[in-house]
């Protein structure tokens, strides 16, 4: 499988995303923000960082970059797109995901490991995560408080679009375990069509045991790869 990893001025997790895809045994190529086409790829990763200095609002300027027009078209055709941290913010600004990410309730930049409960395994981003497993991955953000109006939140729940929620080590969705004040402890969601997802934590920074601790984040990449492989297999007769 081939992944395109976008690169904006201010991206800082782009190389980590490329590294992780290659670690999974697949191909990854960088795409500069001024490129007009993502090319012939199977999936797109929108990495973390501070695109365009986070000026105006996080992701507000990046969403209008030339490469994002191609990502919009790719997503409209059903292509898999995952936004991580700033990438999640960009996808929300672009209207590819509902809601918005606002300043952390504490006003602090939070940089720490968190536990994630997978709310549904019915997605191309969570399919390979074992039932009941809590993921331990780091966060690093100042604007990760997920907000959506009541109507949007109700439709997220009704359509099973909440993918990950911040939990404590016992898997309980407590207020203490919520690092940024997100509604419903939301850490990540997908769109209604289930081909575009975003999350604030950094799975690519927790994909190799050698780099400290667990490799839980890799399960999200494994899920995408398994979903893509399933797509390319002919349907069973």
């Amino acid at each position, binding site marked *: 499988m081939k992944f395109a990893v976008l690169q904006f001025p201010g991206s800082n997790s782009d190389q980590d995303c490329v590294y992780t895809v290659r670690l999974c045994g697949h191909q990854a190529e960088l795409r500069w923000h001024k490129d007009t086409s993502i090319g012939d790829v199977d999936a797109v990763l929108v990495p973390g960082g501070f695109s365009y200095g986070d000026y105006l*609002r996080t992701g507000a300027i990046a969403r*209008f970059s030339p490469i994002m027009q191609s990502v919009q078209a790719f997503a409209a055709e059903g292509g898999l797109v995952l936004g991580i941290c700033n990438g999640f913010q960009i996808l929300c600004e672009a209207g590819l995901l509902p809601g918005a990410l606002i300043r952390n309730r504490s006003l602090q930049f939070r940089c720490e490991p968190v536990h994630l409960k997978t709310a549904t395994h019915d997605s191309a981003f969570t399919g390979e995560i074992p039932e009941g497993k809590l993921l331990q991955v780091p966060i690093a953000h100042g604007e990760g408080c997920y907000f959506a109006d009541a109507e949007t939140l109700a439709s997220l729940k009704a359509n099973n679009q909440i993918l990950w929620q911040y939990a404590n080590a016992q898997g309980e969705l407590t207020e203490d375990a919520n690092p940024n004040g997100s509604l419903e402890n939301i850490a990540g969601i997908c769109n209604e069509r289930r081909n575009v997802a975003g999350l604030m934590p950094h799975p690519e920074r927790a994909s190799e045991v050698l780099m400290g601790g667990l490799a839980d984040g890799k399960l999200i990449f494994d899920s995408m790869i398994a979903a893509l492989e399933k797509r390319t297999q002919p349907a069973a007769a």
Partner: protein
Amino acid sequence: MKAKIIITPKKAVLDPQGKTVESALAHMGYQGVQGVHVGKYIEIDLADGDRDATRKQIDDACHKFLSNPVIEDYHLELE
């Protein structure tokens, strides 16, 4: 011509900056503060031209780019 745009968080949206400033004002002894909302102010210098067309254009920019309608309201003035 000049466009003056004030962007504020929607009432339903958590505004931790506003809350922090509000409690700081109370700590400093300022009386009667019932709410604080922290937003942004943007000034755009514009070539002179048709006022209505300019307003329409800047209004479009406010809606699409300068504010995020999911979380913010804006107020536009031309002078």
